[in-house]
């Protein structure tokens, strides 16, 4: 079952990998190696036990919450109002003495498939590692469960081997090998999945091999005439944007994880970026895709902008969540860098008015690059995150507050805010701004300054660090998202929040926060983000509890007409609902495709459809070495 005819061979930089097909050759001098911000040993720069950089985190000092990490605008700041907010919300005093988790001293014993390893070393030049730490940091994504399991050394199964292919052709070799020797493959990009998609299935008995795409991050070519760029799938979002910016271009795809997540991951999960209004979501940005499956490489041969050519198999690859194959190369659209970027913010007396505003903006299709609406709880939380102010700016802020409450007659317990980002030519931006403020006015909204807006967007990347700090201090918190038609938007926000509140009460959780925001607008609906967290100091199984409540929240979402996911994907944690979401027919269609592309189920990730529902493996004798029934549990 060799991979069939294939258009482009992308050879390894030193052209060491044998070509899979020689139908087409690209001038390799026109491809650029991109130096990634992350080393090959990712834990040298990234936290092994949580989100983000090793050098960036929240911490407590003298009872005050601080943030360290010069990469972010909050770097080195003390956050007294945030500290107060936490105290008030969770009745919790920051305890800086709490220990951080320790790196495990032993790792689960690897399942080794000798013939596979032998051939890997003998016939390929793919770099690989059997080291425990390399394996551990690639066994999980960023779900609460993942992190909690890491902290408490709960993983029984982690990858037995990590490989770093350098190009498409090496991936072809690897997939072929894994297929021949029945080794499970986990495509691993940035490791930021929040759906459990890349978490190792704990009951897998075969050897698990994590296929780390980080070394496949070249810019293969750039076509200015078509404004397209071809990249290898392992390129990290920030690397991609940095390289393109030098060329005066941008892809404009900025999911909140874009510092760490990779292009391949975006495609595999159907990611969405903050600025999708201008640039589009990943499916709008993708022109061509290549995915290596055990039965060959799947790709569209043509670069035309749109084709009517039967079902679009790009959409089989998009959202495949690693279950069908490895995405190796992606052709994306690029845009010239915008000349002007301007922030703005609006305040609304209440959330309902804000939603009406958002609806109107969508109706008139005049969305700026980004427009987000926060509910009151989030607005307050955002205000609390302001670092300690200088005397003068606190006076100004005070005056502003006075103006808002007395002149506009607004109740601070209901006020909500929208943040705005405009991009484009000076004139376009001015026109957009004028229109947006005009619409806002109709819904009792009024401009609240560019600074507030800017902070809102910049904080996006910092907020992700709070989860780990909370977990450290005894608060479990996580976000979840959905998309919903306009007519049920307000209803969904209200009902889900209520459901969460009642679930908390049912479980005697008294200290919690639940908030939401509308982060994207479409012609026919919007994307809603929920933040939910509670104090778990007096709970024995906080993650289970959280998941149970999230589960009921999802049930509520679905019954309000919301979707299973807007952009996080289904993964393992939402696979429960997949069958209902796509109908029985749909899920068996997926299964049939899966069976065809991956007959031995070497991509046995259990995403979309829960593992046991994936049809049994083809009658292939597993290699004897991996047949040891259950892997030994490591003593951690």
């Amino acid at each position, binding site marked *: 079952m060799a991979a069939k005819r294939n*258009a*482009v*061979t992308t050879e390894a930089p030193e052209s060491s990998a044998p070509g899979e097909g*020689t*139908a*087409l*050759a*690209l*001038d390799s*001098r*026109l491809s650029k190696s991109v130096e990634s911000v992350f080393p090959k040993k990712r834990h040298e720069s990234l936290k092994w036990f949580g989100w983000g950089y090793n050098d960036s985190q929240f911490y407590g000092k003298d009872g005050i919450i601080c943030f360290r990490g010069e990469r972010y605008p909050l770097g080195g700041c003390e956050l007294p109002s945030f500290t107060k907010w936490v105290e008030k919300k969770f009745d919790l005093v920051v305890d800086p003495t709490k220990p951080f988790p320790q790196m495990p001293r032993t790792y689960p014993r690897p399942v080794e498939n000798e013939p596979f390893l032998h051939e890997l070393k003998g016939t390929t030049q793919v770099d690989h590692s059997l080291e425990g730490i390399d394996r551990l940091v690639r066994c999980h994504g960023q779900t609460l469960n993942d992190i909690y399991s890491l902290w408490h050394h709960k993983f029984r199964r982690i990858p037995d081997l990590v490989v770093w292919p350098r190009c498409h052709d090496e991936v072809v070799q690897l997939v072929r090998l894994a297929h021949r020797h029945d080794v499970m493959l986990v495509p691993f990009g940035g490791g930021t999945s929040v759906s459990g998609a890349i978490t190792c299935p704990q009951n897998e008995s075969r050897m698990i091999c994590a296929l780390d795409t980080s070394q496949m991050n070249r810019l293969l*070519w*750039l*076509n*200015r*005439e*078509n404004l397209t760029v*071809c990249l290898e799938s392992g390129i990290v979002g920030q690397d991609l944007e940095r390289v393109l910016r030098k060329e005066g271009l941008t892809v404009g795809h900025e999911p909140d994880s874009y510092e760490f997540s990779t292009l391949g991951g975006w495609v595999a999960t159907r990611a969405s970026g903050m600025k999708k209004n201008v640039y589009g979501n990943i499916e709008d940005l993708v022109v*061509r895709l290549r995915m290596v499956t055990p039965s060959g490489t799947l790709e569209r*041969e*043509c*670069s035309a902008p749109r084709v009517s050519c039967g079902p679009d198999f790009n959409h089989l690859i998009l959202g495949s969540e690693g279950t069908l194959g490895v995405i190796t190369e992606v052709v994306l659209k690029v845009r010239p860098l915008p000349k002007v970027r301007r922030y703005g913010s609006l305040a609304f007396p209440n959330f309902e008015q804000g939603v009406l505003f958002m609806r109107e903006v969508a109706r008139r299709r005049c969305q700026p690059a980004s427009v987000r609406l926060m509910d009151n709880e989030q607005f307050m939380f955002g205000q609390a995150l302001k670092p300690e102010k200088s005397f003068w700016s606190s006076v100004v802020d005070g005056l502003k507050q006075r103006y808002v409450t007395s002149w506009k007659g607004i109740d601070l317990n209901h006020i909500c805010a929208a943040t705005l980002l405009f991009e484009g030519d000076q004139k376009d931006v001015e026109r957009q701004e004028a229109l947006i403020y005009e619409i806002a006015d109709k819904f009792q909204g009024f401009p609240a300054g560019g600074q507030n807006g800017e902070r809102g967007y910049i904080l996006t990347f910092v907020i992700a660090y709070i989860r780990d700090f909370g977990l450290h201090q005894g608060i479990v918190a996580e976000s979840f998202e959905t998309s919903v038609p306009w007519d049920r938007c307000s209803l969904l926000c209200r009902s889900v929040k209520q459901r969460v509140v009642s679930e908390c009460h049912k479980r005697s959780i008294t200290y919690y926060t639940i908030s939401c925001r509308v982060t994207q607008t479409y012609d026919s609906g919007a994307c809603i983000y929920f933040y939910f967290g509670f104090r778990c100091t007096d709970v024995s199984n906080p993650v289970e509890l959280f998941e149970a409540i999230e589960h009921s929240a999802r049930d509520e979402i679905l019954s309000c007409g919301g979707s299973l996911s807007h952009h996080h994907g289904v993964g393992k944690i939402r696979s429960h609902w997949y069958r209902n979401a796509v109908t029985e027919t749909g899920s068996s269609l997926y299964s049939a495709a899966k069976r065809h592309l991956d007959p031995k189920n070497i991509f046995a990730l259990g995403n979309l459809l829960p593992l046991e529902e994936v049809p049994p493996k083809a009658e292939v004798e597993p290699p004897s070495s991996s047949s040891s029934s259950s892997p030994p549990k490591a003593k951690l």
Partner: protein
Amino acid sequence: MERNPVTVAGGKSGDSSNQDEKQYSSAADYMRNFKNIIAPGNEASMTREFNPQVAYEFEKYLNPLKLKQHVLKSEKLRSIIEHYAKESGQPIKQLERQARAIIDEIGLERNMAIIRWCGIAITAIGKRICDGFYVNSASMANVRKDMGKCPVLYLPSHRSYMDFILMSYICYYYDIEIPGIAAGMDFHSMFGMGTMLRKTGAFFMRRSFSNDELYWDIFREYMYALVANYHIGVEFFIEGTRSRNFKALVPKIGLLSMALLPYFTGEVPDVMIVPVSVAYERVLEEQLFVYELLGVPKPKESTKGFFKALKIIDERFGKMFLDFGEPISVKEFFGHDSGQRMQRAGVGGHLQKLNRQEVELVKQLANEIIYQQQRRIVITTFNLLSLYYASQLYAQKSVNIDELSRGVLHLKRIFEQLGAHVSTTPSSIKADIIDAVEIHSNILHFATARLQFTPMAAKQLAERIDVKRMKAHALCPQTMAVAVPMLALQLYINPCMFWLARPAYLLLAALKEQRNQRNQLTEDISYDASLSALHSHVTTMDALFQHEFIIESNREAAEFETHLQLLLDERVVEVEKSGRIRVQDNECSHVILAALAPFLCLYYQLVVTLRKIPLDFEFSNKDLLVRVQQHVEQLLQQPGGSASHVHPYCLALDNLNIAIYALIQRSYILKCKDSGQMKIAGTPGKCLQELERQLLEYCQLMPFAQYSTAANQQAQFHIAKL
């Protein structure tokens, strides 16, 4: 890869383009299509309006300046400059300046006034020194009618600088847009000449050994744009250089690959290739080539040299024949449909280069182009006469004009049976012969009614050649006196080799098989076994001479039939039902073997020389050439030219180089890639001794042993007189 359609067709009918010739009931009819375009009354008006058929029609046309700008602004150049900037650390601005200078050096221009003035001059000079420019009007019309839909590549055979002058002249004459012509840099440096050539549509190319990467990237891109975005068509010489010995050279695929890249990337729908065959009754550079072959270096092209060359206007060069072949559609030749091409079309053209399979395809195409050029090169009376004369000479016979007429007419029949176009007219055969001999009076003349070599002028012999500039061994005047006329004669035999190489292999095979059968070396004789034995001998020789005679075209099976039929018809070979082979010694067999004899001698003497070199001794190419020439000179100087199996042609450096290359390719000689030093392979499998034995056997099967006796006597007599 499936074989190309031409191959398939070739297997059936011997030659697919035979069809287009069916309309010509006979070879003579074909020759009637040739029209002398400088005959009084036929001349082109150089002042008329020029509204030519363009090669590739567009809605909007670029001019030469815009073409250069197009290249400079191209995405490819931009990215490649960025690449070099990064690699070399030079600022982009500086590289852009370099790029602009390079493109100005390469780029063609167009000035109608100069073209017209050149036209007037060519008409005048042509009328004076030539007996006519004969152009096949039917094939011109045939090519012209299909033009406009895709880029056109004109690929003429290359024997003389006249080739491209003639091509442009003829395009003007037939209202076809004058193509861009790839010219060597040596012209560029000629004062005034470079500019003039450029303004008539030449673009300049540095020698391939220059390794300025940026230069070649720009050149490639210019070629790409010239093919894909420009309308005039491109002309270049697929043999890369003028063939010094008037037979095809191994095709160079560099320019062809560059020109076909836009096809492979899908940026042009197809490419139309027009093989052009140019034949000269007498080549302008003839004497120059003879000396170059012997090792006297080529003078650098200079304007002074050009004016010196103008003295040729006092001489006669006879007729020139130009024929356009049936255009080859690259797409059809490769048998491509959209399935093969859509993959490439999905990626920007500027990002792509050819892959190995495609390079192989281009090589096949190049061979086909050479084949098509060759088969239309008109065989002139003097070619046949030279061949016939040589065959008599080797048999130590002399000929008078009656014998010559009969012989030449006989040869004309043979060649036409093989498919060649022969310019000889039977009705005026004697006048033709006298004319041909007169044109080549520097080689041959009639003395006492017998054809003889013309002795070299005393001045020419006495002229001391600068020994330091010799490419190999400095030959003594006696050798020169023998070699120069005989080499010149051989040059005019060589165009016949395209037709005779394989019949000669077959004849030699028959001789060998006859001997084997007589000596009972071959056991059970049967018809089929004999035929397959012949076939295998032919294949062996094909392999040995594959770089010498460029005749490969996947038509072997059909040609074998044709050639066997010829030999049967001419009663040279008889294959009995029992399989017994009998070879008759007659005029036809002599002629065919005489054609191959000098080459066999050359390979044989090369191997003999090599065998004298100790196994572990390292030597350079030049060392080897010197050794061979020394060895051959020594043999030639044996009293009375009595040495066997040696021909003055064994001194020809170009052929020696081809033979050496063949031996390297077949691992008889090991060549170090870095130093270029060579060594004799000691492996038992590739035994030079065995090769020597084989070649000697072939040499001995020839009905000739001494080749230069007559020339030798004449030369000695002549030198004695001086």
